[in-house]
C-alpha cells in the first residue's frame, strides 16, 4: 500500500502505528519419513506472499477473505507469534525486534483477541487470574502512579463490560456465556493498556445475537482509548459495520484495499465483488456464487492468482477486452485507483468495472 499522501481523505487517517511491508510467510511442506527417503518433497505453502498494510492510530482496519487466504497468518506475524520469511513489521516507525525483551515490550502495546474464547481461556484459571496474567508477565503494577493489581483487573473487567468486576473474579471460564468469555479475553488484553488490538475473527464463534455487543465494545475501545484495531474476518457485513478501511486478501496477497464505503459499495476487484455476493441478504436476488473450493496456497496459479475462479475470465469478457493474456500470465501488484484505494486487477487499468 502506498504511504499516506497529503491528500484530503487520506489525511484524516492518524499516524501509522503498525506498518507491514512486503511480508512473506511460508509453511514448509512435510512428508512422511519414508516418503522423504524416497526423495519426495512436501509442497511449501506460501501463506502470505508480499503483503503490505498499514494500521493507523485509532483506526479499525478489516482484513477480509476466505480461509486459506493468509489473513490469520498475517495477523499472527503482526503479533510476533511466527517469524516471517521476509518483509518488515514496524511499530511506530521502529522495526519489530526479534529479541525476547524487545518482543515483550512490543506485546504490551499490541494485544490479541482470539476467535474461540472458550479455547483461549485456561479452564483451570479463575477469571481474575486470567485477566491478571498480562500484568504479572509485564511486571505491572509498577511506577509512581501505580494502582494495585486488583484495581487494574477490576478496571479492565469493567471496561470490557463485565460489571461489577468482583462478581467475576472467582468464576471459571466454563461458568460464563460465550459473549462473557470473549469479554474476559478482551479484558485480559486491555489490562496492560495496549495501543493496538489484533482481533482474529472475534465474533465468528459467538451466537449471532451477542456479536453486536462484542463489536460495539471494540468500537467503544477505539472511541475512548484511540486503540487501533485490526479485525480479521470473513464477513464483509461485519466490515461494513465496524471498519474504516478494508483490505481484501486472496491467496496470500492483498487484492483490494481502501475506505470501507468505497470497497464495499463500489468494489473494483472481481473477488471483492464475489465475496460481497455471498453476504446473505433478504429477498435473495439470485447473485452468482463463486464455485469451487477455497484456493490452495501450495499451488499458486501464474498471472493473477484469482484468474482460475474469476468470473470475468470465465465469461470470456477478459478475452474480449484483451486482458486475458495478462490475467493468466503476468503477475500484478496493487495500483492506486483513487487516493487510498488500491486494486490489483487488469480491469482497472482499462477503467472497466468488474
Amino acid at each position, binding site marked *: 500500500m502506498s504511504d499516506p499522501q497529503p491528500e484530503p481523505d487520506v489525511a484524516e487517517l492518524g499516524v501509522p502505528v503498525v506498518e507491514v511491508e512486503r511480508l512473506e510467510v511460508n509453511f514448509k511442506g512435510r512428508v512422511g519419513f519414508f516418503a522423504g527417503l524416497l526423495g519426495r518433497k512436501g509442497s511449501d505453502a506460501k501463506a502470505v506472499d508480499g503483503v503490505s498494510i498499514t494500521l493507523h492510530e485509532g483506526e479499525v482496519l478489516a482484513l477480509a477473505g476466505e480461509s486459506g487466504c493468509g489473513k490469520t497468518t498475517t495477523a499472527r506475524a503482526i503479533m510476533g507469534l511466527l517469524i516471517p520469511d521476509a518483509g518488515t513489521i514496524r511499530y511506530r516507525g521502529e522495526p519489530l525486534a526479534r529479541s525476547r525483551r524487545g518482543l515483550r515490550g512490543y506485546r504490551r502495546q499490541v494485544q490479541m483477541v482470539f476467535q474461540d474464547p472458550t479455547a483461549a481461556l485456561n479452564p483451570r484459571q479463575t477469571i481474575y487470574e486470567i485477566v491478571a496474567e498480562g500484568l504479572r508477565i509485564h511486571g505491572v503494577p509498577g511506577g509512581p502512579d501505580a494502582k494495585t493489581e486488583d484495581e487494574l483487573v477490576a478496571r479492565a473487567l469493567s471496561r470490557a463490560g463485565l460489571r461489577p468486576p468482583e462478581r467475576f473474579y472467582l468464576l471459571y471460564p466454563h461458568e460464563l456465556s460465550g459473549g462473557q468469555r470473549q469479554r474476559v479475553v478482551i479484558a485480559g488484553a486491555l489490562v496492560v493498556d495496549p495501543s493496538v488490538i489484533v482481533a482474529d475473527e472475534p465474533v465468528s464463534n459467538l451466537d449471532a445475537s*451477542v456479536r453486536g455487543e462484542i463489536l460495539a465494545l471494540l468500537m467503544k475501545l477505539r472511541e475512548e482509548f484511540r486503540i487501533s484495531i485490526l479485525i480479521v474476518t470473513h464477513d464483509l457485513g461485519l466490515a461494513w459495520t465496524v471498519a474504516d478501511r478494508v483490505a481484501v486478501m486472496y491467496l496470500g496477497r492483498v487484492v483490494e484495499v481502501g475506505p470501507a464505503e468505497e470497497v464495499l459499495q463500489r468494489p473494483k476487484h472481481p473477488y471483492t465483488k464475489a465475496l460481497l455476493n455471498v453476504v446473505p*441478504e433478504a429477498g435473495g436476488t439470485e447473485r452468482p456464487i463463486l464455485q469451487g473450493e477455497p484456493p490452495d496456497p501450495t499451488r499458486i496459479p501464474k498471472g493473477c492468482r484469482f484468474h482460475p475462479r474469476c468470473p470475468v475470465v470465465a465469461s470470456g469478457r477478459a478475452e474480449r477486452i484483451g486482458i486475458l493474456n495478462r490475467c493468466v500470465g503476468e503477475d500484478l501488484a496493487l495500483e492506486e485507483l483513487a487516493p487510498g484505494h488500491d486494486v490489483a486487477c487488469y480491469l482497472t487499468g482499462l477503467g472497466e468495472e468488474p
Partner: protein
Amino acid sequence: MSVLSVRDLGIEYQTTGGGVPAVRGVDLEVDRGEVLGLAGESGCGKSTIAGAILRLLPVKTRITGRIELDGNDILELTPGKLRAVRWTAGSIVFQGAMHAMNPVQRIGEQIMEPILVHGQSGEREARIRAGTLLEQVGLPTRRLDDYPHELSGGQKQRIMIAMALACSPSLIVADEPTTALDVMVQAQVLQLLRTLQHDLGLALLFITHDLSVLVEVADRLAIMYAGKIVEQGGAEAVFHSPAHPYTKALAAAFPAIGDMRFRGRPSGLGGDPPDPQQIPSGCPFHPRCAEVTPACSSVTPELWTAGPARLAACVHVSGAPALEGVSR
C-alpha cells in the same frame, strides 16, 4: 397436508441437578415443499426439537405433546417401527459433517448404508442410487470410492446431504448445516439445499442461529426464545418488519451493506439467554428487552396475531389483549 406437525411439544432433560426444561410448549407445522426456518440463540431449544423429531434424544428425556411425521405418531412408535421411520420419513443433516462420517469407510458405502438397512433395494441398485445422489449434490460419481479425508469440508457437507436424501424422505431436518463452513462454501451449500428442496418438493426444517441465512432459504420463519416460539410468519416479513423485540434484535445483527444506519453502529442484544432452570416470570425475554413495560414481568404472552399470517408473543402486538401501561 403437513409433513411434520408438532403439537404442544415439551422436552425436559433429566440431569443430576434435576429436570432442565429445554422446550416448553411448541407448535410447528411444515408442509410439503416448504422450508421452515427455526432460529434462536444457542440453548433456546431449537436443536432439541430436531433431536425429538427423530427421537435421537437421551432415553431418560421427558417428552410430552405430539409429533406427527408423515402420518406417524413419532412419540408412540415402537422401537422397530421407529427405525423404519427414521431416514425414510425424515432424515437429518448435522453441523459437524466431519465427525458424522466413518473415516475408514468409502463414501459410496456410507451413502448406501441407509438404503440397504431399510431394504429398499439390493446392493447393485443401491450403488446406482448412490451415484445418482452424488450427482444431485454436485459431485462426480467417481467420488463414491473416496474416503472422507479426501474431501474438503464443503464436499463432506454435500455428502451428508446426499446421505440424508438416500431414502427419499419427506422431511429433512438441517441443524446448522453451514455453520462450520467457509463463506463461499456456505453460500454454495445453501444454494444446493435450496435447489434440491425445490426440485424434489421436500419439506425442510432449517435450524440455525444465523437469521440472515434463513432469510435466503426459508419460506416461513419461527423464532425461538427460552424454549418457546416467540414469533412466526413469512420469512421476509419477519426479517424486515419484526414484531417481537427479540426478533428485532436478531435481525439488527445482520447489516445490509450500503445501509448507513449500520455503519459504525454494531447492534446486538445485551445479556445472556436465561438459565432454563430459572426462566424469568412473565415474558421470558423481558430482562433483556428494549421495549419492556411494567406489565411484561407479570403477563405471560401467548402467540397473538401480529398482522396477516403473523404471530408474536409480545404485549406490544396488535392482537394482544389490552393491558395497562402498554402502548402499541
